[in-house]
């Protein structure tokens, strides 16, 4: 008689479903996951893997890890990255060497796909957790990631 068995099983599973949601309802006060955004702005911490914008970290000597290899520019599916580079003579070896002038990043076009970060051989760029990206003038969305006067960190190229 699977007919009555089905009815019994149906009722049992329905009740166990309601038990689960009922538990959530009773404990709702303690476990609320909603963030009350503008109020908690000072303490709000975005979660680990959030992708807000591409940034280039600099250390205290204003040095970054970008060699100007253009791997990120090639990897970007929608042309959000433009690398302006040049060559100069290295004093030690006397050879001509590529260096980065401007790492231009168009936040307005970026889809936060993370491909540029994966492509970078020297981990020079990463995703920041900032999410308040709205501005009144869209030119503010085109950013130069390397800070003025910054240079390549020693030992990155080896």
């Amino acid at each position, binding site marked *: 008689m699977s007919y009555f068995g*089905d009815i019994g099983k149906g009722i049992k599973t329905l009740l166990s*479903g309601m038990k689960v*949601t*009922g538990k*959530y*309802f009773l404990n*709702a006060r303690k476990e*609320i996951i*909603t963030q009350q955004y503008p109020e908690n702005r000072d303490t709000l911490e975005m979660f680990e893997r959030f992708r807000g914008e591409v940034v280039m970290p600099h250390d205290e000597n204003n040095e970054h890890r970008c060699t100007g290899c253009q791997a990120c520019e090639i990897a970007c599916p929608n042309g959000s990255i433009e690398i302006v580079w040049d060559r100069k003579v290295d004093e030690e070896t006397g050879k001509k060497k590529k260096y980065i002038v401007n790492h231009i990043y168009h936040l307005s076009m970026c889809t936060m796909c993370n491909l540029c970060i994966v492509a970078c051989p020297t981990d020079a760029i990463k995703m920041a957790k900032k999410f308040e990206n709205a501005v009144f003038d869209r030119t503010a969305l085109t950013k130069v990631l390397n800070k003025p006067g910054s240079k390549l960190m020693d030992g990155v190229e080896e």
Partner: protein
Amino acid sequence: MYDFTGLIQGINKWLHSILPAVAADVVGWILIAAAFLGLFAILGLVLVLAERKIAAFFQLRLGPNRIGPWGIFQTVADAIKLLLKEPVGTNRADSFLYNLAPYFVIIAALMSMSVLPFAKGLHAYDIDIGVFFVIAMSSLGVMGILLGGWASNNKYALLGAMRSGAQMISYELSVGLSILTIVLLSGSLRMSDIVASQSDYWFIFKGHIPAWIAFMIFIIAGTAETNRTPFDLTEAESELGAGFHTEYSGLKFAFFFLSEFVNMFIIAAMGAILFFGGWMPLHIGGWDGFNHVMDFIPPIFWFFGKVSFLIFLIMWFRWTFPRLRIDQLLTLEWKYLLPMNLANILLMAFIVLMGWHL
């Protein structure tokens, strides 16, 4: 104690003393109509807010919390927004039926509400076929949904309306039969008699197991009648846009939306009246002291308390169960609920015949 009969009769007498008989009657009707419209609007506002808050707690959210303390004015703001919205219609719609449909739904809901007893003496129309009247009116509401879906000239709306038709035809049976099980116990279709005959035990205790089965079937089929999740195939946002009210906006949409919530109230009220004694306090036959203590709580609180509990139960269903597929919906009704219901009626009839009920 807490009898409204005197108050209502007093108002009636006073109206007759200052106005000619016909005018007094008309004024009386208008007052009753205004009271019901007021209740309708308040129910809509309160239930929508309750639904959103309860849904939020089930999902560990906060729910509306910006307008007023704990967001209690959220639905008032929503209502004002809906009133101010531009009514957008479709070009090819059958405009007469399209405009008529929301009124069908809302008038059916109001008519069924008119026969509900809210407390002793607080009863607009104690018709002798009260239960039957509510069933008849609830099928009239479907007409509005079918008309709206058909007249919108939109395939999603039509699909939603057709599903609604299939669903109503099926589940009306279950609601009717489970109500019939209780009518066997009460021996009357008049609402006031049904409530009065529960003064020793509520029917759910009186009828033993068949009453419990009837209640379960009633609450399942009632949820289906009001087109709420898990039976909301008529709207099915993920499949049909918004189902039968896809093409409605502004106030006409608000009518559909409101009447869904008021229908939920009506189903919950019917459940409370038929199974939990309506406004009758919890009485246990023979325990006079206990019964007397219970009588101190006004019947209107008993009624709305029971209704709120049933409404909460229906909301709990909504935020627990996923939507049924149309074939599952029909299987549930025709293969499970209906045979169970018929067997249950026989059992109940036997119990009543042998006098085994309490």
